[in-house]
């Protein structure tokens, strides 16, 4: 009887220990947390390739991204020369912080799944070419550094969008979500 108890007890301990190791199908969720950073401002720093002292900065700003207040477009325009080439730097800022936080570096660090796209209105003689690349294999364009090439006199809207494409970046603008969508008025004369 005593031996039977010993055998039953040891069998139970053994099976319990083994059974406890057989749990599968683990799952973990990293839930959303409140955002603590805004993207309030988009700047285009445009430098004439033929004249480095010819520098313009266009700025689109909306300090309260969550409300319905219209953005500040007072500096959201560019005046470009005809048939010229411009080197362009796109910058993203959080102007709700003091001093203003430059988020461009973070986007650069995460360039492998970010893409900046340009929507050029028909009739505006402007061509935008991205010149920087990420670390994907093969490397894909990013768009923080660009070249604008102008044609004849014209004017129209330039839409700048920052696309967040986590694990879906393929060089196209379509995948992912849009972190920023802003518009500038461009005049070429």
């Amino acid at each position, binding site marked *: 009887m005593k031996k039977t108890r010993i055998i039953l007890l040891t069998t139970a301990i*053994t099976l319990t220990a083994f059974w406890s190791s057989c749990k599968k199908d683990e799952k*973990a969720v990293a839930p959303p947390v409140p955002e603590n950073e805004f993207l309030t401002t988009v700047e285009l720093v445009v430098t004439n390739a033929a004249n480095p002292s010819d520098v313009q900065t266009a700025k689109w700003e909306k300090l309260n991204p969550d409300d319905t207040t219209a953005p500040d477009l007072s500096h959201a325009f560019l005046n470009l020369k005809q048939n010229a080439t411009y080197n362009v730097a796109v910058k993203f800022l959080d102007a709700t912080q003091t001093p203003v936080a430059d988020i461009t570096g973070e986007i650069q660090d995460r360039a492998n799944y970010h893409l900046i796209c340009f929507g050029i209105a028909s009739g505006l003689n402007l061509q935008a070419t991205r010149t920087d690349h990420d670390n994907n294999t093969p490397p894909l364009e990013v768009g923080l550094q660009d070249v604008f090439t102008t044609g004849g006199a014209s004017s129209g809207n330039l839409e700048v969008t920052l696309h967040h494409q986590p694990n879906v970046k393929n060089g196209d603008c379509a995948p992912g979500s849009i972190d920023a969508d802003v518009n500038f008025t461009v005049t070429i004369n």
Partner: protein
Amino acid sequence: MISKKIQLCLAFLAMFAAGKTQAQEAAANRYTKLYIGITGGISAPQGNFTKTDYSDPASGFAKTGGNIGLTGTYFFTKNWGINALVSYHGYGFHGAQNLADGYKEDFAVDSTTLNVNGSNHSINFLIGPYYSLPVAKKLFVDFRLLGGLSAANLAGNTVQLEDQEAATFSQDKATATAFAWQAGAALRYNTSKHFGVLLNVDYFSSKPNFSIENTNRANEAGRKITSYNQPIQGLNVNITLAWLLEN
């Protein structure tokens, strides 16, 4: 008359004493020739295999689990034998939250959901010398050193970024076979002529070289493991129920 009785008693006692000595000798010459047992218990891995650091590619995310197996020893002499062991080691998985949090940060998304696919486990075929040291009438301290093969399996995972189905990617489950060894001691108590119980403590070690496939990794971002070559080692604490055969 009295002295005759005393002589008779002494003769009887002498005969009894002689008979007892023969029985003791016979018992002393008996020893376990073979035992076959079912063994199981706790497997406690150590080292990098148990780490849960998202940013460390050596992290194996394994935790203490269990093992079960069949074992047998054939004794060539009273003390020496050869032992074989076929066992399954199943380790738990922990640190899934670290992985989910890490991917969330590295892909700058609002949320991630990570599912662990499969399990960390191994099937082991080991054989080696066995030494048994009697310490009491039914109590022995046994030692063994085993070597052989371990077929190991590394768990995979699937990561969903927010609710974007197209962005979901996986680290596939992987398998690898490697040399393994195990060394340990056991306290064996023979509960009867044909049954015994062993309390085993063994150290096990192997170092499989996993080659890992990743599915739908479109971009170079986040933790991405393409190989894993870390020791799988630790302690087993087992109970073995043995059927004994004496010579």
